[in-house]
C-alpha cells in the first residue's frame, strides 16, 4: 500500500550512487559553484531524466531530476500550465537543489512551495520518498522542503512531483522611468513582479485581460510619472549575483538612491545606487551592491557584486550540522559544498 515503488531508472541511479566514496550530481552547471566546488576526487553522476507523468487535471507533474527545466516548461505549456521553477536553463534537480525562486516569484510562487514529493538517493545508496503525490499533504515530516536548497548535501535528488498552475490568460510587462516602485507595488493587488534598477521600474501584470487593464490603470494613477508607462516585451536583464534582503530594506535603498527622495538631482546611473546599500543591516556591511535590480515586495537584489557571507548563529550552525550528520554521517554527498555560510552568493 506504500507509494508506488521507485521505477527502474531510479533504482539504477541508486546503484550508481552506491554507499561509498564522495559523490555529486551534475546537472546543467548553471549554478555549479553555488556553495563551493565539490572536493577533488568526487565522483560526478547524472540523475535520471524524463517527465514521468503530467496530470493537468490534478495540476501535478512527476519529473525526474535530470530533466531540463526548459523541457518541463514546454511540456506544461502545451496544456496551459507552468511551475515555479525559474526558467533559466539547467535541470529540475539542479533548480531544486539550489532552490532559487523565479524573478517573478510573486506570480509563480516559491520553488519550495511547489514541491509535493521528493525521491532522493540517500548517503547509503537507497531511494527515499518524502512528502506525497497530492496537492495537499501534512503526513509526517516535511522532507521536501528540507531538500529544496540543500545543494545535494542531504540526499541526491532523483525525482520530484511538482505543483503546476494555469498560465494566466494575459501576461504584460510595463516600464517607466522615475516611478516610485513602492507606490506601484502598494497600488497593485497581486503583481507578478515589480523590479527597479535605481531609475527604471518594471512591472509584470498577469490575469484576465480586463483585470490586467484595470491594474495597469491603477498603476498609472498611483505613480504619476512624467514619461508615463510603456509596454515592453520582458523585464530587465539581471546582474549575476543574488542578495537576500528584507523588502523594507529596499525602501531604505530607494530613499538613499540618486534620484530617490533622499538625494538631490536627477536619475543617476544604476551603478552608483548600490553605494547607498549599506543600510541593509542584516547583510552586514557590504561595500555596495554595484549595478542592481531589486525585486520590490520580495527583497531579492540582483547585483553585479557578490553578497557577503552571513554566518549563522552558533546554535543554528550546530543544528544544521546535526541535520547534515544524520543524513550523511560520512560526509560523502557533495563534499566541499556547504549551504552555510556562502548560501546567498551564487554567481549566475
Amino acid at each position, binding site marked *: 500500500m506504500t507509494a508506488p515503488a521507485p521505477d527502474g531508472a531510479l533504482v539504477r541511479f541508486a546503484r550508481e550512487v552506491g554507499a561509498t566514496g564522495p559523490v555529486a550530481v551534475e546537472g546543467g552547471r548553471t549554478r555549479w559553484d553555488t556553495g563551493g566546488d565539490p572536493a577533488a576526487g568526487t565522483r560526478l553522476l547524472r540523475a535520471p531524466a524524463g517527465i514521468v507523468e503530467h496530470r493537468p487535471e490534478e495540476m501535478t507533474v512527476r519529473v525526474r531530476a535530470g530533466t531540463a527545466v526548459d523541457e518541463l516548461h514546454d511540456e506544461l505549456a502545451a496544456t496551459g500550465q507552468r511551475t515555479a521553477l525559474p526558467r533559466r536553463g539547467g535541470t529540475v534537480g539542479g533548480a531544486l537543489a539550489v532552490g*532559487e525562486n523565479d524573478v517573478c516569484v510573486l506570480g509563480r510562487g516559491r520553488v519550495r*512551495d511547489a514541491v509535493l514529493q521528493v525521491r532522493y538517493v540517500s548517503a547509503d545508496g*537507497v531511494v*527515499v520518498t518524502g512528502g506525497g503525490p497530492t496537492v495537499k499533504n501534512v503526513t509526517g515530516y516535511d522532507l521536501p522542503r528540507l531538500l*529544496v536548497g540543500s545543494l545535494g548535501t542531504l540526499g541526491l535528488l532523483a525525482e520530484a512531483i511538482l505543483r503546476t498552475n494555469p498560465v494566466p490568460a494575459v501576461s504584460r510587462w510595463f516600464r517607466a522611468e522615475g516611478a516610485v516602485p*513602492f507606490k506601484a507595488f502598494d497600488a497593485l493587488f497581486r503583481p507578478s513582479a515589480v523590479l527597479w534598477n535605481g531609475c527604471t521600474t518594471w512591472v509584470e501584470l498577469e490575469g484576465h485581460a480586463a483585470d490586467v487593464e484595470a491594474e495597469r490603470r491603477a498603476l498609472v494613477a498611483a505613480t504619476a510619472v512624467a514619461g508615463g508607462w510603456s509596454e515592453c516585451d520582458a523585464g530587465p536583464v539581471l546582474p549575476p549575483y543574488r542578495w537576500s534582503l528584507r523588502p523594507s530594506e529596499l525602501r531604505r535603498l530607494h530613499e538613499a538612491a540618486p534620484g530617490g527622495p533622499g538625494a538631490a538631482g536627477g536619475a543617476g546611473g544604476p551603478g552608483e545606487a548600490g553605494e547607498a546599500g549599506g543600510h541593509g543591516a542584516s547583510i552586514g556591511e557590504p561595500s555596495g551592491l554595484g549595478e542592481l535590480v531589486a525585486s520590490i515586495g520580495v527583497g531579492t537584489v540582483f547585483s553585479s557584486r557578490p553578497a557577503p557571507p552571513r554566518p549563522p548563529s552558533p546554535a543554528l550552525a550546530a543544528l544544521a550540522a546535526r*541535520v547534515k550528520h544524520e543524513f550523511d554521517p560520512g560526509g560523502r554527498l557533495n563534499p566541499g559544498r556547504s549551504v552555510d555560510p556562502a548560501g546567498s552568493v551564487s554567481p549566475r
Partner: protein
Amino acid sequence: MRGRPVSADPLVAALCAVLGRDRVRDDAAERALLAHDASVFAGGAAGPVCFPTSTEEVRAVVRIAASHGSAVVPRGAGTGLAGGAIPLGRPVVVVTTKMNRILEVDRDDRIAWVEPGVVNLDLTKHLRPLGFHFAPDPSSQQACTIGGNVANNSGGPHCLAYGVTSQHVLALDVVLPDGEVVRLGGLDAEPPGYDLRGAFIGGEGTLGIATRIAVRITKNPPAVRTLLLAFDSIEEAATVVGRVVAAGIVPAAMEVMDRGITVAVENFVHAGYPVDAGAVLLVEVDGPEAGTALDAERIAEIGRAGGATSVRTAAGEEERALLWRGRKTAFGAVAQIAPSYYLHDTVVPRAALPQVLRAVYEIAERHGLMVVNVFHAGDGNLHPLLLFDPREPGTLARVHAAGREIVEVSLAAGGVLSGEHGVGVEKRDYMPLQFSDVDLDHQNRLRRAFDPACRANPGKVLPSGHSCADIQSLERLPAGVWA
C-alpha cells in the same frame, strides 16, 4: 498529587520557582483536562501544566524538564483532531495561551510577529483595518492558535488558492528540546542555509516549541464571490470540482457537504442551505473585480452542465459570512446527530473523489455506522466523519476498523494519510501504510537532529519501531488519577 505540598515534587517546585505558583498547575483536575484535545483519543496523562509568558520562560521550563528527565508537550487551544497535543506518559505540558500578543505588524515587509498563543481569527481581525489578513483559515480558526497552526502546518478552505501555513510563515524563534534558542528562516527573500523553518513547520511539537512567529500578511482581495451549488448526489458535486480545476480555474475555496451534514449545519446557522439536496458545493472566487465575476460565471456554467439543481450567489458579506459559519462549524454540528465522531483526513487525487466517496459510504454501511462527509473538495482533502455513540459497547472497534479501510482505500487511489490535521497519536500507526521503513527512518533522522534525547512530545507522528514512539505505552487513563 492532591494535598501534597508543591515542594514535595522537585520538578514542580523547580517550575514554580521560575513561573510562580499560579502559573504552574499540578492538581488532578487541570491535569485531567489537559489529557485531551478535540480528538476522541483517551489515553493521555499530563504531568505538571505550565503557563509561560516569554521565550525565556519556555526555555527555563524546557531545561528544568530535561534536567528532571521529563518530556515536554506544547499545547495551544487544544482544537487538534489527531491527538498531537495529548500528553503521553505524564510530560510537562507547556500551554501557550498566555503568550498571545501580536508583537508587530510591518506593512513594508508584509509580516506580523506574533506569539504562539494568538488566536488565528484574532490576528485576521487585527489586520482587517489595514486591509490584510492571515491566509490559513482552518475551520477552527475562531479558537485555534497560530502556534498550533505552525505545529500542524494547518490548512483550511482557502488554502486551495493561498497555500497552507508553511507558505505563510517566514521565520520562527524556537526553543529546541535541549533548551537552545534558534531563529529559523528569516524575513529576507531567500534566507541562507537549510530550510529548517520548513522542516520545523508541521513537526507537531516534536522538534521544539515556537515562541515567536513571523507570519506573512496577505492583501484582502478587492472582490469576492461565493456560490452555493446544490446537487442530487455527492458524486456529481465531486465531478464538478474536478471540471472546474481542469478548466484552469483555481478558486479560493471549494467545499462539499453531503446531505447529512448540511441538515445539521443548517439547523445551527439558518443560512438557507438546501436541506433537500444530495450534496452542496460551496465555491469562493476572489481577486480583481472583472476576473472574479468571469470565473464565478464559468463555475456556475460548469456546475449547471454537471447537474447542479440550483446555483445561488451570496448577495452580500452577511450572507457570505453565514454560509462560511455553517461550513466552519460543521464538525461540532454533528453532535446533533450522534454524541461522538471519528474522522479521517486523507487526500486523494481530485479525479478519484467520486470513486473514493462511494467506497467510504459503502465501508460505513458495511460496519453499520453512519458517515457524513464535509471536505475540502478543491484539493481532494476528505473529512469523512464516522458518527457513533461511545456508550454503545463494541462501537469503537467498528469505528476503528472502518477508519482503517477508509485510509486504505484513499492510499490505494494514490492519496495520502493526512491533508491538514496531522498524524499525532491517532494516525501514527497508519504511517507504514504510506511510507516504507527507509522513508520513516529518514523522517526520524530529521527528528533526531532536533531532539536527540526524545524529550519533545514523545509518542507522536512516527509509529512504534521508529524513534521515541517505543518508549511510550498508550494505556487507558491510569487508575486513581482522581485520588
